Every structure is written in structure tokens, then in C-alpha cells.
């Protein structure tokens, strides 16, 4: 058969041979897909074929059933469903047969392909005999260990692919029985037990009914706990993975087993090898996450969640009850850092897992963790072994967030006092000989400032006494190794954040700002940097420092800073850069600098006095010149950042901005058409709003082009849906800004709005994410109507559309009574609704009776009416 040859050639080292083979395979596929799939399955099943061709046959087969991209995936599924059932049965049969092959690779590949077929056919009820067939493999006496292993693997993969309603309860029972039998130590090889345990992990999700039954549940738990003591590391690891999953899925029934589970996992954490210990820690982390979730239900506003309390399982406070023994174990783990691994390198090892778990425990139990951890911090912070010092500082940083949220002021004040005592030690450790200790210390300082430094809230670890030392050390440490300096920048960020909008409270921080800015500017431009992590951290902190500067200090600070930033941005444009790496760096640097400029512009334009505001007018030309040059880099992040800054500039300069539009226009167009980076597209849409508001009638000559792109975007499937609501809103902005000039777009824009309104009516109300999107979409459609109704009021050109808008309003009003609108959106929706009703009534005036006289639907809406001032709803 020539397919074998093609499959082999397609893996040839010779590019020419490879390309030709690939094209032949593709031709084959296009000519007759069912036959091609069948051939591939035969190839995979054929023990006489070379492993290489069988492997590729499996991969090609798999890729014709499933890919990551969801649109293509859907297409592939439809393609498969359309194939004649005779072909499909044959293919399935070859695949099932391969599970017993003597070649391990063929078995594994076949198991994976089977799961992909199952993912399409099982939910469609097109493969009812699959589970039975697989179970038969397990029951048959003459089944080889290999067949059992690959059958269990298949079961595991299938469970991963399909979802709970796809299986009948008796099927679930059989699967669980088969899997549990596969875990039996006495009867099975280690390979079979491993496959069974892994399959169980995927099958747990289906076992809800079984877990409700105590006998069955206890039996499953017993098997897992026994398996967790197996000789083989991988099997133990898989068993602990099952336990971690059970902790998330069946939290409410764990009570009886908790004592045993706690011992089992503690021993694993303390004595087992790392992969197993990691899973054991994972068990605790999962319990924490579950309990944190339960606490959220408790604190959530009941009024908005009336249906939820029924589903909330009882809170068993496992972590709180076991904290006395649990926390010391975690603290021990913190001391197991590896040498020369920066903690921020995303390496997942036991000390990392312990750190994460400690943070979660703190969030679960809150302030009661503090007395259990502080002695460890105090005892270890000065020990000669750096592991101790690092662990001590880390432990403090890890618990800050969890132990401070939801606390009342009294507790926070006491907490501040406690931590204030440690500040000097931390500052001292910023001069430690060990780099990791310094990095962690800087991180911990950042955390402390983030959660225990709120002059506005009335509590802070910072006093006018210790502030000079804090600033002094931070400013010096910005010159430390880049990993340390990056965390120092973050600490400066959170320190400054506390002073944002703090009025009088910020006055004693203000004198330090010039020095801090100087050090951040230095850090951002250090010559010894390989990457831009420190640079962007420094600029981000600079942003925060600018934001927090008081109105009396800001003008002077900004004048000086602005010239430096403009100079730096212009330097990035002078350099000729060839390498792609260099270009990327240049773009990132420009993005950071544009970010700083955006913050400066926003700060200046929100100033109360004209003199400060005038800074912008004098610098606008140079800024725009630079932004336009930056656009030539064509990187989307920098595009986005420069766009944001331009939007702020348009807002700040008002109608003066008009002179820049001829040059800017093509970049606006490019941004609006950037579907690939939809964030950049979305930002550009917002900036168009800024510009039309700033320019009013002056924007008319550009509106044909802009409206055309916006309308094209709305009808495009390829554009991320999140961009569409902002587009509707901005259409309203345009109408409001150009008034009757908008008339010519009404007949193309309003039908789009109507289509989107119809879409809202068809949305699935069970999908929370979709509900939220729907609310956003409705708000934006109303905003578009409001803008158009107000803008074109005089011509009454909207008259013919009044009825459909009326119906849409009626639909939203009625729907509101049936479904709950996601929190936050109800207020916005109500506001937009009240406004558009007002706008419609304004258009209709005395005509409303003749128009709606025959409509009998009476719409009741509590709270939103003309009388309710929009501002009250804000």
C-alpha cells in the first residue's frame, strides 16, 4: 500500500521528499476523506507496518478529529459526523483492535484517537457500544495485561473528553468497577494499576452518585488510600492526584476520612519523594481553595444570589481545625529551597508548592495564622543559614494578604504595630549577602505596603519616623542585582499606591518623590540589563508615583519628568535596529515610555488649574510627533500603549487635537482593523470615542472611513466579540458629536444594532459568561441608540426605527424579571435603559400615541423611569 511509503516519506530529512509526500497525503485526504481515515486506521492497526508510519498515521488521524482552534474543531467534528456509518464502524473497530497490539506506541496512540472519536460520537449518542466494548476487554479472562492497560488508558482519556451527562449511571458504575478492579494490587501489574489510577482521576467527575452513597464512597477512598502506599512512585503520585481532585469535587463528604487523609498526606509531605509530596501538598491547597470559595458565598450579597444558598455545602473548617499541625509542616518545607534558583523563575518544586499552600492557608484561616507564623519569622530571620532567613521573610510575605482581608480596623492597627517592629529587620536584610534573601525581602516589603499601608483607611506600617529609612533603603536597592531591583520597584509601587488620593495624609511622602523618581529613572536605564523586566517595573512604579503626587507637587514633577521621558522616547527612535530580538526590546521600551506619557497626560488633564493644564498644549506637538513615529514599529503592544496615550491627549487638548488627525488617521484605521490583537483594536475603538468627543464637527470628514470600518467590524465573525460592545458605544459617541451629519449612516448602522438586539434575545441564559456579555452588549446598544436619537433629533430620521427600539426595550424589561442580571451590570443596564427611554420619548413627543396606540404590552419596570435621575443610579 502506498500510504505507508507516503507516511514514511513525510518524516524524511530531505525537505523535497517530505513536501511531496505531504502534498500527496493531502491530495488523498481531499479526494476521499472517509477512505483516507479508514486507511490510516488500518495502518495504525497493522502490526506488520513499521512503527514510524503507524505513529504518523495515528497523529494524522487525531489531527483530523481534533485541533485546538475551536472553529476548526467544530468543522472537523461536522466532517466526521457526515461520514457514512459503515466507514466509521470500520474505523472504530480497527482502533479498538489496536488496543491489544503488541507495540506499546500503537496501543497508546490508538487509545488517544479513540478518545477523540468518542468526544464527537458519545455526546451525539452515536457510539453506545463503546463503554461496553471497553469493559469487555477488562472482564475477558484471556485479556492480556497490555490490553487491560491500554483499555484503562482509553477509559481515562474518554472520561477526560466527554462530560457527565454523556454517560448513563449504569455505565458510570461499570467504568468505576473496572477501574477500581484495575487498581487491585494482588491481581494486576504496576502498569495496569498506574493506568487504572490515572483513569480513576479522570472518572471521578462522573462519580457524583457513587460518592453520595457511603458504602461505595468508602470503598473508593479505601482503594485510593491503599494505592497511595504503593511501591511505585508514579502510582503513588497518581493516587495523591486523585485525592487532590476529590478534595475539590467532594469536599462536603470528606469529614469521615479527614483524619486518615491528613496523616497520609502529612507523611507524604514529610517523607516521600518530591513528585508525590507535591501532590500531597496539592491536596491541602485544594481544600483551602474550596474553603475560600465557601467563605465567598457567605460574604456575597444574598439579594443578588437568592438561588445560591441551596447549593452551598457546609463549611467544615478542615484547615482551621488542623492548622496547629499543618502550618509547622509547611514552614519546614519553606526551608527546602534549591540553590541558585530565583523563586520567580516559575520552577515548581516543593518549597514553591509549600509557599503557595501557605498563602492559601492564610487566606483560609485569616488572622489566626499570624501567631503561628510570626515566631518562625522572628527565630529564623537572623540565622546564619540563608535558607532560614529567606524562609522567614517569605513566610511573613505569604501570610500578609490572607490575614489582612476582611479584618476590622482594630485588628489591622494591631497588625501594623506588630509588623512595624519587623520593618527594621527587613530593611537590614536588604543588605544581605544572599541575593535570594534580598529578592524575597523586597517582595515581602511590597506585600506589606500593599496590604498594611493605607493612610486613607487609617492604618499603616509606615510612620513619619520610619519612612526616611524605608525610602533610603529602597532607593539604594534599586541599584542592586536586577532580580532584586525589580522587586524593589514593585515595593515602591505599593508604597506610593497607599498615598494615592490620600490628600493630607500623603504630605510627608511628597518630599521624597523627586529622589524616588530619580532612582526609578536610573533603574529603568541601567546598562547591565539582559531583559526589560526591571525597566518596565521601574516605569510602572514611576507611573504610580506620578499618580500619587499631590496637586501642588505635580506640576513641577511633571515638567521635569516629561522632558526626560520625551527624550528617552525619541532616543529609541534614533537607533537603527536590525535584529528581531532588538526590535522587540525597542517596542517594549517604547510601550513602557508611552505608558508613562499616558499617565502624565491624564494627571495633567485632570488638574484643576489652567496653568498645569497648559503644560499639555505646549508639549502636544512633540508628543504627537513621537507617537506617530512609534507607530511605524508596528508592534501591537506599543500600538496599544501609544493609542491609549493619544486618547488621553485628545481628551486633554480638546478641539486643538484636530490638526493631528490627518496624520493619525491611517494608524487609527490600522488599529481598528487589527483583529488579531483585539486588545489593540478595542483600545483604538475607545480612542476614536475620545477623538470624536474632542473634535465634534471637525471629525466629519473622517467619519465615512471610520464608520465603514466600524460597521465591517461589527459584521465580522473573526473579530473577538469583546470588541463589539465598545463599537456600539462609540457609534453613539460619533452621532452625538456630529449631530445631523450622522443621518447618512443611520440606515446602515441601526440595522446592525437591531441584529445585535436579536442576538441578545437568543442568548443562552444558563451561561454566566454569556449573560455578562449579553448585559454589556445591551448597554452598548442602548448607548448607541441614545447617541443617535440625541444627535439626529431635529431631523427625526430615527422615527421609522422607534418601534423596533420600543420592542427591544420591552424585551429587556421583561427579560430582567426572568433572569438575574450579573452583579454590577444591573445598575449599568438600568441606567442605560432609563436614559434610552427618555431619549425615545423625547423623539416621539406627541407622536407616541399614534405610533404605539395599538400596542397593548404594558411594561413595568421598578426603579428605572424618567423621574429617576441617572446620577442616582450611578
Amino acid at each position: 500500500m502506498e500510504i505507508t511509503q507516503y507516511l514514511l516519506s513525510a518524516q524524511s530529512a530531505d525537505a523535497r521528499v517530505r513536501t511531496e509526500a505531504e502534498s500527496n497525503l493531502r491530495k488523498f485526504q481531499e479526494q476521499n476523506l472517509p477512505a483516507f481515515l479508514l486507511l490510516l486506521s488500518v495502518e495504525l492497526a497493522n502490526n506488520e507496518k513499521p512503527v514510524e508510519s503507524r505513529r504518523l498515521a495515528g497523529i494524522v488521524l487525531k489531527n483530523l478529529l481534533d485541533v485546538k482552534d475551536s472553529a476548526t474543531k467544530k468543522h472537523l467534528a461536522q466532517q466526521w459526523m457526515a461520514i457514512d456509518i459503515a466507514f466509521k464502524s470500520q474505523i472504530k473497530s480497527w482502533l479498538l483492535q489496536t488496543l491489544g497490539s503488541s507495540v506499546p506506541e500503537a496501543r497508546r496512540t490508538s487509545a488517544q484517537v479513540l478518545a477523540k472519536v468518542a468526544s464527537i460520537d458519545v455526546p451525539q449518542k452515536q457510539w453506545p457500544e463503546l463503554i461496553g466494548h471497553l469493559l469487555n476487554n477488562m472482564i475477558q479472562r484471556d485479556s492480556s495485561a497490555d490490553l487491560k492497560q491500554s483499555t484503562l488508558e482509553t477509559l481515562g482519556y474518554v472520561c477526560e473528553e466527554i462530560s457527565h451527562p454523556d454517560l448513563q449511571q449504569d455505565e458510570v458504575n461499570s467504568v468505576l468497577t473496572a477501574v477500581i478492579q484495575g487498581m487491585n494490587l494482588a491481581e494486576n501489574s504496576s502498569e495496569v494499576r498506574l493506568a487504572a489510577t490515572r483513569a480513576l482521576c479522570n472518572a471521578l467527575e462522573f462519580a457524583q452518585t457513587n460518592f453520595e452513597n457511603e458504602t461505595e464512597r468508602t470503598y473508593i477512598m479505601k482503594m485510593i488510600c491503599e494505592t497511595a502506599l504503593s511501591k511505585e512512585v508514579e502510582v503513588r503520585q497518581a493516587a495523591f492526584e486523585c485525592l487532590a481532585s476529590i478534595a475539590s469535587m467532594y469536599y462536603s463528604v470528606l469529614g469521615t476520612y479527614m483524619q486518615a487523609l491528613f496523616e497520609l498526606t502529612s507523611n507524604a509531605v514529610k517523607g516521600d519523594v518530591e513528585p508525590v509530596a507535591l501532590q500531597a501538598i496539592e491536596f491541602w491547597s485544594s481544600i483551602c481553595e474550596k474553603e475560600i470559595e465557601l467563605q465567598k458565598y457567605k460574604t456575597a450579597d444574598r439579594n443578588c444570589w437568592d438561588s445560591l444558598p441551596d447549593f452551598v455545602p457546609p463549611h467544615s473548617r478542615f484547615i482551621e481545625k488542623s492548622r496547629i499541625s499543618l502550618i509547622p509542616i509547611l514552614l519546614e518545607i519553606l526551608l527546602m529551597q534549591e540553590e541558585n534558583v530565583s523563586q520567580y523563575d516559575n520552577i515548581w518544586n516543593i518549597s514553591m508548592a509549600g509557599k503557595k499552600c501557605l498563602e492559601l492557608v492564610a487566606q483560609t484561616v485569616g488572622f489566626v495564622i499570624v501567631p503561628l507564623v510570626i515566631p518562625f519569622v522572628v527565630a529564623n530571620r537572623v540565622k546564619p543559614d540563608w535558607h532560614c532567613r529567606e524562609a522567614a521573610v517569605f513566610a511573613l510575605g505569604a501570610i500578609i494578604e490572607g490575614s489582612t482581608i476582611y479584618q476590622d480596623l482594630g485588628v489591622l492597627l494591631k497588625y501594623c504595630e506588630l509588623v512595624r517592629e519587623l520593618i527594621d529587620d527587613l530593611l537590614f536584610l536588604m543588605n544581605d549577602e544572599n541575593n535570594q534573601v534580598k529578592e524575597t525581602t523586597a517582595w515581602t516589603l511590597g506585600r506589606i505596603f500593599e496590604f498594611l499601608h493605607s493612610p486613607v483607611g487609617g492604618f499603616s506600617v509606615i510612620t513619619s519616623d520610619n519612612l526616611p529609612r524605608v525610602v533610603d533603603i529602597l532607593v539604594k536597592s534599586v541599584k542592586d542585582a536586577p532580580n532584586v531591583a525589580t522587586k524593589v520597584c514593585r515595593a515602591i509601587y505599593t508604597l506610593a499606591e497607599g498615598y494615592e488620593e490620600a490628600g493630607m495624609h500623603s504630605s510627608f511622602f511628597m518630599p521624597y518623590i523627586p529622589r524616588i523618581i530619580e532612582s526609578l529613572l536610573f533603574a529603568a536605564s541601567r546598562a547591565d540589563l539582559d531583559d526589560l523586566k526591571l525597566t518596565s517595573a521601574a516605569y510602572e512604579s514611576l507611573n504610580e508615583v506620578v499618580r500619587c503626587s499631590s496637586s501642588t507637587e505635580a506640576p513641577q514633577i511633571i515638567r521635569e519628568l516629561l522632558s526626560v521621558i520625551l527624550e528617552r522616547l525619541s532616543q529609541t527612535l534614533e537607533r537603527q535596529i536590525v535584529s528581531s530580538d532588538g526590535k522587540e526590546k525597542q517596542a517594549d521600551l517604547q510601550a513602557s515610555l508611552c505608558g508613562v506619557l499616558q499617565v502624565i497626560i491624564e494627571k495633567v488633564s485632570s488638574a484643576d488649574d489652567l496653568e498645569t493644564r497648559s503644560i499639555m498644549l505646549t508639549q502636544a506637538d512633540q508628543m504627537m510627533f513621537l507617537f506617530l513615529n512609534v507607530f511605524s514599529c508596528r508592534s501591537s503592544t506599543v500600538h496599544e500603549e501609544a493609542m491609549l496615550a493619544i486618547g488621553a491627549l485628545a481628551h486633554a487638548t480638546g478641539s486643538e487635537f484636530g490638526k493631528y488627525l490627518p496624520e493619525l488617521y491611517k494608524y487609527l484605521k490600522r488599529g481598528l482593523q487589527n483583529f488579531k490583537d483585539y486588545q489593540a483594536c478595542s483600545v483604538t475603538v475607545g480612542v476614536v470615542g475620545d477623538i470624536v468627543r474632542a473634535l465634534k464637527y471637525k471629525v466629519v470628514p473622517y467619519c465615512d472611513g471610520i464608520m465603514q470600518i466600524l460597521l465591517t467590524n461589527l459584521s465580522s465573525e473573526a473579530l473577538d466579540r469583546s470588541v463589539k460592545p465598545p463599537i456600539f458605544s462609540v457609534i453613539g459617541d460619533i452621532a452625538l458629536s456630529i449631530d445631523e451629519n450622522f443621518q447618512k449612516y443611520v440606515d446602515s448602522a441601526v440595522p446592525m444594532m437591531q441584529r445585535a438586539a436579536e442576538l441578545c434575545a437568543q442568548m443562552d441564559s444558563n451561561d454566566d459568561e454569556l449573560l455578562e456579555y449579553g448585559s454589556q452588549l445591551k448597554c452598548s446598544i442602548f448607548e448607541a441608540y441614545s447617541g443617535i436619537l440625541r444627535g439626529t433629533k431635529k431631523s427625526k430620521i430615527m422615527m421609522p426605527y422607534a418601534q423596533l427600539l420600543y420592542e427591544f426595550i420591552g424585551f429587556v424589561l421583561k427579560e430582567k424579571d426572568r433572569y438575574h442580571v450579573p452583579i454590577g451590570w444591573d445598575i449599568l443596564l438600568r441606567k442605560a435603559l432609563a436614559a434610552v427611554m427618555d431619549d425615545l420619548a423625547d423623539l416621539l413627543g406627541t407622536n407616541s400615541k399614534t405610533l404605539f396606540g395599538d400596542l397593548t404590552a404594558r411594561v413595568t419596570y421598578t426603579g428605572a423611569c424618567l423621574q429617576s435621575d441617572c446620577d442616582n443610579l450611578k
Partner: protein
Amino acid sequence: MAPSDLRRPYKRPQLSDQQRRRELSLKRQEQSRDAELQARRLASTLLSLPPEQQPSDPEPEPSSSTDYDLRDASKLKGPAARKWFAKQLMLPEWMIDVPHRLPHDWYVLPRPAGRRCFVVSSDGTTISRQRNGTVLHRFPSALPHGSRNRDGSGPPSYSILDCIFHEMDQTYYVIDMVCWKNYSYYNCSTEFRFTWLKEKLAETKACDPPSYYHKYRFSLVPWSRCDLAGLHNAYAGEVPFIKDGILFYNKHAHYQPGNTPLALVWKDEHCSQYVIDTDSKGQVPSHQQVVLELQDDGKVTTSDDPPVVFSCLNLDFIQQSGLQSGCLLRFAIGDGGLTIVDGKLERADLHYVGTSNRARAFADTYSKIMFQSMARGSPLRIDDLVASISSSDDEADTLDVEMAV
């Protein structure tokens, strides 16, 4: 996937500064959009409401939840729009205690006696409308597009000023600006609005003496920082109009429709003829009178948001008198007076007088009742204001010292 993969970056991913910048931009854009629409709605109402309150208009049935029927849009438009409109002016609260930092955060200005109104210029005409919605004047003015004279000069636009019309010299005294040539100023601080108002007004001939295309003169009320000199000028300085107390505006406040504590009014006998409220006959009643709104549950409340409860009426009494919720009722405050504990109203000795004049749209505000009550007993005096300003200066000094230490 092992659950651990989900939480690899063990440090909670902080909201990146980029994300923050994006969100701040979105917020600003949303606020600007709201401000534009708000200004447009106000202009539209100013221009299109019927000039007078029509007698055929039924009184709106005020209730907390309203059935809204689009078929009734035109019917509702009148009263509902009036009610909405009445809340669009930024209304100062009465000063019942002196805010901190007067010289740092506040402007002071003398308040002309007269009718508070919005003035809108658009489409070749200018309309002034009082708080109750009635048109005061329809006239040509030198405001942008305020008369036919300037036809063709630039694209159509509308501007909205917040004024007091002073009868004696037939002048509109401008105190604030909501919108100028289609640009909304709702979201700008007082400091910016006042400065900008001065500049914009100077670009027109609106402050010129009246002429054929400019029927009434506009004039800016002089404002200044609320230091001792500023306060003295507003209080005792020469002004071309009859003074009715003095106004205080917080520098940082945006234009906030409705009652706001960020603008304050104060007066005494020296700077106003009408310190203590008079009754319909122009007499000062022996006991202070207040107007309160009757709620569903029998409580009588002020027009504040949220309303302050003064008392609760007996339900039998309500039924017998045929009163309905939403009614405005007049009460006299008896000798028991108002009992204030920890700054909160504890008890009021109210005596029912009757229903209020139908022309009134709103009950009294809490600050008005308190100011009137104090005016009869122990008023807040100019000396108190002066003392506050002086001590505020000291405060700033001590702060400077602290900072130096």
C-alpha cells in the same frame, strides 16, 4: 491536567499597570460619554419643555416605583421631565457648620438676589428656564448661537449657563457653566469651570450692554479664594446687585446636579434681607414652619437623598385627612424644638398646619430646616467663619512645621 498547573505562578498575579491604565481610560471615556449625554438631555429639555406649567397637566403621582408605559410617553413627558429638570441645577446646601480648610479648598462669592435659572443658547435663540421649568425669557443674546445675528458662524452648537436673573438691573449673573459650544463641563472641577467660564465669556460679547441682538446683559459673579480677604469682599464688598447671602463652592467638586454639600449657602442680616423665612403674607411666623413629604409608611421626610425622617404620622389621621403618600405637608415646629444628639436628629416637635402650596415640587432639605432653626436661636455668625479661616491657616502652619521636622 494536574491542578497544580493552574496555580503555577504562586504569587497572585497583580493587576498589571497596563491593565490599570486601560481600565482608567475606559472609566474616563465612560464618564465623558455620560457627561455629554447629560448635557444634551438638559439642553433638549431646556429647549423643548412647554414654556409654562400647563394647568391641564395632572400632578405627577410620585411613588418610589413607577409604571412606565411608552404609550404615555408624551403625557409623561411634561410632568416627569419637569421633575427631572428640577434636579438638574447644582443646589447648595445651607451651611450649618463650617467646613475645614475653607481657604484651601473653597471659593466664596456673593449671591445675587433673584431667580436661579439655566440659560441655554442654541439655534439662534436663548432661553432661560427656572427650576420649576417655567420659561423666564426667550431672547436673543450674544452667547454662542444665542441670536440670529450669528447665523453661519460655525457649526450649530448649544451652551448652558447656570445663572441668577437679577430683576433690578435686568442682568443675568452667571455663577457656573455646564456646557459651552457642545463641550460638556460636568466632569470638570469648580476651579477649572470657573476659570474657563471667565475665559469663554470674555470671548463673546455677552457682558456688553444690551442691544438689538442682545437683550439682556450677562455678568460674572466675582469669585475668589475663601481666605479672609475673599470672605470679606463677598460679605461686605461693593457689588452691583442686591446680595442675598454668600455662596461657597468646593474647588475640586464636579458639577453635581441636585443638592450637594460641596456647594454651600450662608447668610445673615448684613448680607441678606431675608434671613428668616416668611409666610405667604410676608410675615415671620412665630414658630418655624417646615415642608415635609409624606411617605407610604406615614413617615414625613425631607427632600434629601437619602431622606431624613422628621416624624411619623398616625395612620388614622392620614386616612381621616385624606392625605396620600407623596403629599407635601406644612408643619410648625413647637416649643419642643428639634432635638439633636451626636449630630443626628433625634426628635422634632411637629404640629401639622396643612398641605403645602401646590406650586412646590419638593420638601425642605435638612440643611435648610437646620439653618432656619439656628437662625432663630443661635445662628452661625460671620465671626465663626472668620475664626474658622484663621484657625485653618494655623493648621496649615503646624502642618508645615511637622513636615519640616
